[in-house]
């Protein structure tokens, strides 16, 4: 089966600019997650979708970050305006409903804010 697709792979922007990341999950996976992974740290959950509804966005900095999952398939994560501390790898993952399946991750988007 095809994996989780993410684009772009790399992005360099200046602070205060905006950026968007795209994710297409595995077909049939109702649950989609966006994680932020800062260098040297474990992934931190930003937002979790179940179909096209938000289940958990408690760790999403809503003053600058937004995410949507229209039609319950692919998803977009946006940052506007970006700060230096947003430099990280943004990982998208998907899974079947139920915590026991484990996640399938995409390769991530490495964002550098200069």
């Amino acid at each position, binding site marked *: 089966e095809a994996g*989780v697709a993410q684009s772009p792979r790399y992005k360099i922007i200046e602070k205060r600019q905006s950026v968007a990341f795209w994710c297409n999950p595995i077909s049939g996976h109702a649950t989609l997650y966006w994680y932020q992974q800062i260098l040297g740290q*474990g*992934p931190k959950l930003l937002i979790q979708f179940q179909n096209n509804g938000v*289940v958990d966005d408690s760790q999403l900095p809503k003053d600058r970050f937004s995410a949507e999952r229209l039609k319950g398939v692919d998803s977009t994560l946006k940052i506007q305006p970006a700060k230096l501390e947003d430099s990280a790898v943004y990982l998208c*993952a998907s899974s079947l*409903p139920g*915590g026991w399946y*484990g*996640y399938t991750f*995409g390769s991530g988007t490495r964002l550098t804010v200069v």
Partner: protein
Amino acid sequence: AQSVTQLDSQVPVFEEAPVELRCNYSSSVSVYLFWYVQYPNQGLQLLLKYLSGSTLVKGINGFEAEFNKSQTSFHLRKPSVHISDTAEYFCAVSEIASYDKVIFGPGTSLSVSP
């Protein structure tokens, strides 16, 4: 709320030596436990998972982990490592009935030398 501790940030070993990567978790309810591996510039890949039943779990690439409820641990082991096992390893926990939310540890960098 659940949390994960990985006691060793870096583990250097020689090829064909055994290795153990330690993981402890904190939770007030029953949990699912996972180990993921991340190769350079890639997303995370599921190594193995503990859901219930036998406390010794076998995964891919010759890895295994043992769940110890009394010590709230889930240590990862391999009897003989290869150069290709060099990667970042993340322990993760999900509280049962937490809407599939998974919390990751900070990671352990395994470096295998010839």
